């Protein structure tokens, strides 16, 4: 998490009371407001987006918010994290997971990726125009660049590689459209992390549409993050006829954006990131002496709704299997809670390894199961 030194808030505030973004926008919205985040924490930046969306009445102007975040995976509002990314790998690499409030698919952020969020009122919501800002900015920096926007609101390079994806959120009176821009991202990390770590998962969550990606710097080394950020800001002003300067914003500034800390805390909460997943089921199956063992788990709102285990009776007595299942039902689908499922097993059954495989295969990080072994 990088934070630049002292905060420089609104350049000039005529009113005497504390300067909030709303009042800033009221004063200067007509000439456009461009904000640049001084933080690279993905939750804080998403919280800024939320607060701008909630607090500011955007009629009569627009806001552009430019930000970058350190390595993180961001999934869409209605997606299933177990389906979209490899949670185990992310835990090992220390890559956090965030769920944004807009729709769309899963993306990988890092410091080589620039995010631009266009805030407008509902009536002025126009994704094509926003993408024109991006392509216009890139062409200003590199006139021979072959970039264009597609029907799916992506930006492709050379007609084949995606350099930008976008998602949008519409509220009652305001809307925002945010886009990524791959300048110099770690493509290897991107590819390895955006892969499902779980097999046998069935859900109705929004799936991601994978596309081949490319960095802008691969095409033209001059297109690094800072240059691109400045160009986008300039093009935004040119496109919409605004003249605002780029203002730094500190996502921790509660006075400027009331409620931003609370919003960031909400976005970090397990209940939002994992608990918001639409209902899904996982079926794990593996061989054991005497047959195969199948475990079916249905998870709803991040909580195990039902669990059925089918195992050869000699390997795991049905009563024990039932006890295991009923212990799991009602607990959240996360290691700390699954850990308290104590199971009675026979000493000759290598329960530990299969249970660990089952639960780890679908758990965000490693767990330590306490299993009570009993002699039958």
């Amino acid at each position, binding site marked *: 998490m990088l934070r630049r030194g002292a905060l420089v808030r609104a350049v000039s505030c005529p009113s005497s009371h504390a300067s909030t973004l*709303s009042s800033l926008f009221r004063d200067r919205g007509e000439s456009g407001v461009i904000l640049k985040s001084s933080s690279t924490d993905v939750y804080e930046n998403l919280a800024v987006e939320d607060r701008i969306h*909630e*607090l*500011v*009445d955007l*009629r009569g102007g627009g806001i552009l918010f430019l930000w970058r975040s350190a390595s993180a995976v961001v999934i*869409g*509002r*209605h997606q299933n994290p177990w389906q979209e990314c490899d949670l185990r790998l992310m835990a090992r690499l220390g890559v956090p997971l965030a769920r944004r*409030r*807009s*729709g*769309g*698919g899963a993306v990988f952020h890092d410091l080589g990726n620039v995010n631009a969020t266009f805030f407008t*009122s*509902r*009536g*002025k*919501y*126009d*994704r094509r125009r926003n993408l024109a800002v991006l392509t216009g900015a890139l062409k200003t920096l590199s006139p021979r660049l072959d970039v264009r926007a597609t029907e*799916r*609101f992506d930006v492709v390079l050379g007609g084949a590689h995606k350099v930008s994806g*976008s*998602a*949008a*959120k*519409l*509220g*009652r*009176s*305001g809307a925002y*459209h945010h886009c990524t821009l791959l300048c110099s991202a770690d493509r290897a990390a991107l590819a390895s992390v955006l892969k499902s770590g779980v097999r046998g998962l069935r859900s*109705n969550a*929004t799936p991601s549409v994978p596309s081949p990606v490319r960095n802008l710097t691969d095409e033209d080394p001059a297109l690094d993050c800072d240059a691109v950020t400045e160009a986008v800001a300039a093009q935004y002003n040119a496109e919409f006829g605004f003249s605002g300067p780029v203002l730094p914003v500190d996502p921790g500034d509660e006075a400027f954006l009331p409620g931003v800390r609370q919003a960031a805390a909400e976005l970090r909460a397990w*209940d*939002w990131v994992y*608990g*918001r997943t*639409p209902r899904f089921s996982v079926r794990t199956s593996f061989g054991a002496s005497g047959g195969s063992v199948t475990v079916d788990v249905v998870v*709803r*709102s*991040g*909580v195990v*709704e039902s669990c059925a285990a089918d195992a050869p009776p000699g390997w795991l007595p049905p009563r*024990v299997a039932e*006890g295991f299942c*009923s*212990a799991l*039902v*009602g*607990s959240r689908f996360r290691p700390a809670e699954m850990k*308290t*499922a*104590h*199971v*009675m097993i026979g000493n000759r059954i290598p329960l530990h390894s299969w249970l660990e495989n089952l639960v780890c295969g679908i758990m965000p990080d490693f767990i330590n199961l306490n299993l009570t072994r*009993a*002699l*039958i």
Partner: protein
Amino acid sequence: MAAAFTVRGPFTSMRRLVSSRHRYRPCCPRVQAAARPVVVVVPRGLPAALPQPRRCFRTSYAAGGPVLQFKLSDIGEGIMEVTVKEWYVKEGDKVSQFDSICEVQSDKASVTITSRYDGVIRKLYYDVDTIALVGSPLVDIETDPGHEVAPEKDVVETPAVSLDEHTHQEIKGLKTQATPAVRRLAMENNIKLSEVLGTGRDGRILKEDILNFLSKQTGAILPHQEIRPPPPPLTPAPAALSKPREKGLPSAPQPVAPKPVFTGKDHTEPLKGFHKAMVRTMTAALKIPHFGYCDEVDVTQLARLRADLKDVAKARGVKLSFMPFFIKAASLGLLHFPILNASVDEGCQNITYKAAHNIGLAMDTSQGLLVPNVKNVQVLSVFDIAVELNRLQALGASGQLGTADLTGGTFTLSNIGSIGGTYAKPVILPPEVAIGALGKVQILPRFNSKDEVVKAHIMNVSWSADHRIVDGATMSRFSNLWRSYLENPAAMVLDLK
């Protein structure tokens, strides 16, 4: 403030009295001295004496305001349909204007739909993960009486003043948003809304803001009012979390209980698909008066023949079982007894003698009991029938039997013996008139022509026929003929067509 009487009663009768969706007789919750003539509305079925007028008559069945259909508004960009992803309310919930109702998604854009009215949700039109059309009704909201009905058209920003500003108080050029209830509270307390700091969405002023403002001003404790915190825009509310988790199993080894405890529960589910079809067919079938006729067939010679021919057929790529022989023999028999290959209509008025012998095979597949048939057995050789059987069995195993194979049968054989059993009582498949069930082949001792006990391959057959048109003698003769072909396959060769 016209009506002084409140009206209670079933809502349907209330609706009948309302001439159109948007016009209604305002029923004021307050008691007001009625200077004008009182309009008394008495729905049928009410006691003659109306209750005294009083305040706050909002109970679950109170006749409230009209039920308004809240339609899914235009999302823009020419989008015509969206997927409903999450509901924040359910039927019976109370909502205020601007509360979130649901979340819909359309191609990477997630849209929060907020309520246009105060009221109670009466109906949700869509389930999660279903597609909703723009302009179609999303929910029904029963509004409070006395609520100003917002204009039907949605909030769309036009160059001129936008329509929803009619409901906003414009003060000093700034638009302060507050619901009518909050505005009434401010008015009652002589507070200027412009002086209150709004903490709701978009700077909206909430009831709590008014109360805070008041307490700051007077420093007094306000009379008790139920203060509900504003619902956060996205409330994670996982259902069924309250189910207590059964604390695992005791740590000490449990002694084996002397009596097993049965913890099974009855499970009821509606019949669907295949089971439902079977219910229909069998109900129709058992309206036919059946009679049964059983016999025993000595298939020793047939077994020998089959053993000889099995390899020949295999060389041709076909698996040869007994069934092709049974089917061909049946067809040869039907040539002599065409009434068994007939069909009667519903009222049993007309009988149709079918020309083709489409002999059905009862097959136990993963989808259940299916009866595909081999068409035109009368012109097929035993080998052709075997080929056809292989094809139908392969389709049956993969669940791909088509309607062509499953319809048009005229006669049926059921080889239940392949699973087990000797004698059976098969059920005729309408609109056929006869059916045979073949038991398993057993090796039993029998007397031969020289009075010696020999090993014989014995199979039992059970026929059922429609006694309205088939008599026992016909069935018996057919069975004897069929049996003779099988007991002496050489005779079959003589009559093979």
